[in-house]
């Protein structure tokens, strides 16, 4: 590096291409930047940045060339700001920590929560509690439960649903530390919790909510359940092969609603199929969230999330033909080709999140 040689020609003092010359350039630079950046505060920053760079280089630039140098520098500064903004936008999702930060009161809240759940559990009947715990905690499936109880899998599942609905109600009552003020409260809350429309009509739930303040307050979280799913966001829990089909059908449904072209819909469904299969293959369980995007234009976003082992080498997993099971190794790279934006965040031992976006081609 000829750094030593560069030291010498610096010494050309007395020439006024220094600070004064630079000051004359301010209006020019201001004009160039303002034409490209509408926000005055940002524009001001960029003008300063440009002048600082020009000033630093003033001694190296030939006399008379300072003006063109300033023009190019101003353009470069603006362009690199845009690039930076774009990069930030693209990488924004990486900054998001998948785990919410641990608040100082989290332990206390968690303990209270546990106590409330435990209390609520004691309010269930023995049989309800045992069945629920066998299914949810021990992971016993409905079929074998049905065999033990001398019932059918469907009946056990329905029973479990009713138990869960009751548990939600009891949990709310415990955690809010209220006793239902009237005889009718509990049946109404139960009907709301189970989402059983017919039962809600029978107990005249809507009227009771108007009359009873306690129930009106308690019912908010119960009613909130499932409402989100109806909106422009579909959430598909993923465990088995069949969920791959469910996930891609959810994506297809939403993409159809967003008026994607049939070809794009199939591309999206195929990509969803690939990333969802990865969850089933590698992580046992996870979820796929399909959401509509309005900004900056109409599109669909798919987030496939799992808490599995993670991908040790994401770069390699994104290469064609890299496969750790008997596949074609087309899963991730293939899905990337099908979508407009594609990002994988993975941490060994903590899980993988694949985020993909497809924008609607404006026809």
């Amino acid at each position, binding site marked *: 590096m000829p750094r030593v040689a560069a030291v010498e020609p610096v010494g050309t003092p007395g020439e006024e291409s220094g600070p004064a010359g630079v000051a004359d350039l301010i209006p020019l630079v201001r004009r160039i930047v303002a034409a490209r950046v509408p926000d005055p505060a940002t524009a001001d920053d960029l003008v300063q940045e440009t002048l600082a760079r020009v000033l630093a280089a003033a001694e190296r630039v030939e006399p008379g060339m300072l003006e063109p140098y300033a023009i190019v520098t101003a353009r470069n500064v603006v362009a690199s700001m845009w690039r930076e903004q774009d990069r930030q936008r693209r990488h924004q999702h990486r900054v998001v920590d998948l785990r919410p930060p641990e608040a100082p009161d989290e332990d206390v809240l968690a303990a209270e929560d546990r106590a409330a759940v435990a209390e609520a559990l004691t309010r269930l009947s023995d049989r309800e509690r045992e069945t629920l715990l066998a299914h949810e905690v021990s992971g016993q499936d409905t079929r074998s439960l049905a065999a033990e109880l001398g019932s059918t899998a469907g009946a056990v599942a329905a029973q479990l649903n009713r138990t869960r609905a009751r548990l939600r109600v009891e949990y709310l009552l415990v955690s809010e530390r209220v006793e239902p003020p009237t005889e009718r409260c509990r049946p109404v809350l139960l009907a709301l919790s189970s989402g059983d429309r017919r039962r809600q009509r029978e107990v005249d739930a809507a009227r009771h909510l108007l009359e009873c303040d306690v129930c009106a307050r308690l019912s908010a979280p119960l009613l909130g359940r499932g409402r989100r799913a109806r909106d422009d966001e579909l959430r598909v829990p993923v465990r*088995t*092969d*069949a969920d*791959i*089909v469910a996930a*891609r*059908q959810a994506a*297809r449904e939403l993409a159809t609603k967003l008026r994607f072209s*049939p*070809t794009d*819909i*199939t*591309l999206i*469904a*195929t990509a969803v*199929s*690939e990333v969802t*299969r990865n969850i*089933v293959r590698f992580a046992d369980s996870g979820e796929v969230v399909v959401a509509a995007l309005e900004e900056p234009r109409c599109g669909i976003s798919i987030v496939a999330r799992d808490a599995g082992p993670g991908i040790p080498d994401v770069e390699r997993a994104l290469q*064609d033909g890299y496969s750790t099971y008997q*596949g*074609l190794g*087309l*899963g991730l*790279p*293939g*899905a990337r*080709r*099908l979508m407009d934006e594609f990002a994988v965040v993975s941490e060994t031992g903590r899980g993988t999140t694949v985020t993909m976006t497809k924008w609607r081609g404006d026809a």
Partner: protein
Amino acid sequence: MTAVPRLFSILRQGPYLIASVHTALDDSQLVRFQEDLVHRIGADRARGVVIDVAALDVLDSFGSRTLRDVAEMARLRGAVTVIVGIQPDVAFAMVELGMDTGSVLTALDLEEGLVELDRCVAAPPVVPT
């Protein structure tokens, strides 16, 4: 077997089998389809197979690979396989995905598929001697 509606059917038509997929299959159903079909090729002494996939909404890497494997297994069992009914959008997605399906015979629809089978079975590829 429980009384679930059939997700695919395998019918005999002369020396050929016509396998139709009726709905979107998940992976394990696809594998069962593969096994049933390979078994039936032996049981029915079929010389050719037409697989109609018009009802598949998506042929992703697993689906494509399974079909390719079926064709290869069928070939090893002495039958020619023709895939028919790949939807235009599905074809588009397969190419974008980067599937290599060049070795599999295809035809536009069932009728074309049977014609193709007739041609292949009547004049088997010349083996260099």
